[in-house]
């Protein structure tokens, strides 16, 4: 057995059908919201920790893997925030940019002090009053314990499959193979393609868990070329990159649907926060039940 260096272990259909959260009767839309917010939180924390996108992307994939399948984590048992923090901690530990538990906890405390869970770059630029995110020694100790226990649970749940192959470099390689960089607007295309790859990380459809890096890279290039208006070869060039038409189509739809989804999330949680902890999630579920009568 020689594992391909380009391939990731993927989630099975059965695993996708029965996520732990749903078995715990978490409403599916709430589950999607929490996954989306958790992934965004990871991304934001990665930016504040000055981590390269490579590391952040790996952390998000680890975060997503955790929720998959009946043996996976459930939002009734683990808050999206704690899993996000532990995924990032675990990933940095294995990367060339290890971060201390203290840094992680401080950054997550800061992000939790923000008034919204739809964290964008604007929010990260602003400065919160320092009193909002002070972490006492006791709180630190407790959160660190949580961090470590969650980390271990992630490792167990993933069967230690923490290695993640990413499509970014493949994407550049494919662009070179397609001879795109001779085009004057190639940088624009490349930027869009990378942006699509970053966006796809946040997908509630777990695009990174259902498709291999070559397909992700190909779809991102396909979409980017259409948006930028650069003509691609007439032939079915994606076949060269191990992607068939059907998969390409599915991924394009999946990637494009994210914008609408993100907008929906923003509207849904405007003025409040998506439940990121077990308690908040419970409260939200209870609230909904009351509303429904």
């Amino acid at each position: 057995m020689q594992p391909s260096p380009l391939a990731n272990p993927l989630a099975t259909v059965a695993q996708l059908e029965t996520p732990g959260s749903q078995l715990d009767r978490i409403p599916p839309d709430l589950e999607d919201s929490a996954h989306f917010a958790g992934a965004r939180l990871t991304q934001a924390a990665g930016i504040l920790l000055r981590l390269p996108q490579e590391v952040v992307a790996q952390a998000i994939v680890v975060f997503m893997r955790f929720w998959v399948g009946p043996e996976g984590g459930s939002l009734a048992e683990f808050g999206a925030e704690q899993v996000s923090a532990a995924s990032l901690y675990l990933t940095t530990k294995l990367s060339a940019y290890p971060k201390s538990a203290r840094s992680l906890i401080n950054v997550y405390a800061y992000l939790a002090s923000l008034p919204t869970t739809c964290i964008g770059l604007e929010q990260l630029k602003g400065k919160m009053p320092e009193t909002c995110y002070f972490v006492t020694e006791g709180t630190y100790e407790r959160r660190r314990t949580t961090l470590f226990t969650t980390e271990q649970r992630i490792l167990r749940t993933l069967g230690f499959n923490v290695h993640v192959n990413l499509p970014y470099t493949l994407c550049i390689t494919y662009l070179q193979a397609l001879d795109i960089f001779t085009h004057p607007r190639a940088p624009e295309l490349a930027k869009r393609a990378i942006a699509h790859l970053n966006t796809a990380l946040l997908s509630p459809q777990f695009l990174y868990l259902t498709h291999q890096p070559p397909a992700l890279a190909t779809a991102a290039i396909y979409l980017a070329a259409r948006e930028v208006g650069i003509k691609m070869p007439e032939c079915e060039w994606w076949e060269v990159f191990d992607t068939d038409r059907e998969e390409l189509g599915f991924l394009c739809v999946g990637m494009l649907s994210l914008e609408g989804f993100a907008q929906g999330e923003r509207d849904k949680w405007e003025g409040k926060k998506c439940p990121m902890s077990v308690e908040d999630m419970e409260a939200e579920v209870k609230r909904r039940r009351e509303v429904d009568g």
Partner: protein
Amino acid sequence: MATSAGTTPSQGLHRRFKGCSKIGEYEMMRKLGEGTFGEVHQARHKVTGSIYALKKILMHNEKDGFPITALREIKLLKMLSHDNVLRLEEMAVERPKAEGRKRAILYMVTPYMDHDLSGLLDNPDVRFQEAQIKCYMLQLFKGLQYLHDSHILHRDMKAANLLINNRGRLQIADFGLARHYDEAVPQRGRGNGDAKREYTTLVVTRWYRPPELLLQLRRYTPAIDMWGAGCVFGEMFKRKPILAGQSDIHQAQIIFEMVGSPNETSMPGWDELPGAEPIRAFPPHTGNITQRFRELSPVGLSLMKDLMRLDWRKRINAIDAIDHPYFKEQPLPMREEDIPHFADSHELDRRNARGQKQALPPAPAGGTVGGGPNGEYTGSGPPPQGWQNGAGRYGGPQDRGPPGVDRAPRGGYDRRPPPYEHRPPPPPPPGEQRRPNWGNGTDRHNNSLPAPPPDGRHALPPVPRYGPNDGDRRRGPPAAGGGDVYIPSYGADGPRRSREPDDRAREDRPRHGSRDSGNSREGYTDERADRGRGYRDRDRDRGNDSRNFGRERRDGRTRSRSPDRRDRDRDRDRRGGGDRDTEVYRRR
């Protein structure tokens, strides 16, 4: 990646991930080894009937969560797949059951191998034929070629880390010190290349440590593993380590006695290496390798010399070693299946064979370990005193590891404590007897005992010269003793424990400059802001009510998960709204 080679089809793009399997899928058979690190068990998979070795990873109060060394080893092993590299089948988890145990115990599941090379060479009933040695060396080189080609430095090449089964297969094991190699990989006929990056020199067990590491070359290459392979090559003829230095400086000395003093021809640039100073005072040697290895043919000797070349740039690489004429001359390498079977050389059997010797008391702190000034010590009495950085443990006849390596009298699988597994395990369940102390520092496992002299991990000051930031504050390596002046000793921690954190400190952190600024472990106090209540103090605010969240919903569920959830819930109920900290701990 593919978790279980046995059950998961894992070619190409069709891979799946699944969680750890449960320890209940295995039937424990017998203990293969025990020591400071915990245990290695032989186990049978209940479904397939295959035999595996299960290595326990103990984690208790780890300061940084899951031990990075274990994580690295697991991650590397999961990416590797070669006939001559020990395969990590999967991880198995033993969920906490007893009240006293809070966290799960994890096991690394690897194929069961009958011997380790060190134990085999120690077995007086085993004689290697040259054709057999060739077979093993070829396998070793193939494994190394694969590792190096995969950009991995093993960094702990030695006989004890080479496992051998009764079908003649040799596999490289123990990747606790291994790391990704960031440079171009060795090419045919071009030696081992050059490195651009700096790595920590605190690697490789001393007896197998190449001269460039002793001279503190930071930009080392796969050549360091090839030197170790050379040592193993010699060891297979001599049946004992060929370069058993008592201290790091002595190690350099005996290396130069064997292969000749370094000069600008034999080791260009040696003079500029940080550790060169004490070497200049050595009397010049021309080397006695030819006399020492008279049993080797001229071709064999040339391979030996190629492996033991002082110049790391010219030292033979694994690709070329495989093609060496030595493997084409008579006697030709034996085929794996022709290699004779050996009686099991496992710890418990070997221990029984040795009679009472194993029950020796732990050595006093700073004590000695088996082996003699030049490795001639055969274990027929207490070894000479006075080694500065020995493991502080009595080794006995079976202890073929060098000082600094925690190797008690034992055979296969019981090599030395991996770097992670050094925390005390949970207190034994009531009624269970404390494990016998094999003179190996197991006493430390019992929390009620005083500080552990047998382990030698007593209060020695950290060595300041470990780098800009006081090196390793977590486990300061004990200061080097008198004769060991130019290379810091590993001290009694065992090489890996004291090395690995430092590895991280020196390799990972500083080189990232600004990226890390403000986020390093040293910097965190500055990140704290003014007083105020932190965000939702979820742990503190959690009441009984919330703790039961999801539980009733889970009742009547159909899925098979989480016996531990039930336990946890039960515990939770029993405890009511008890101790908050325990509660938090238990919850997660």
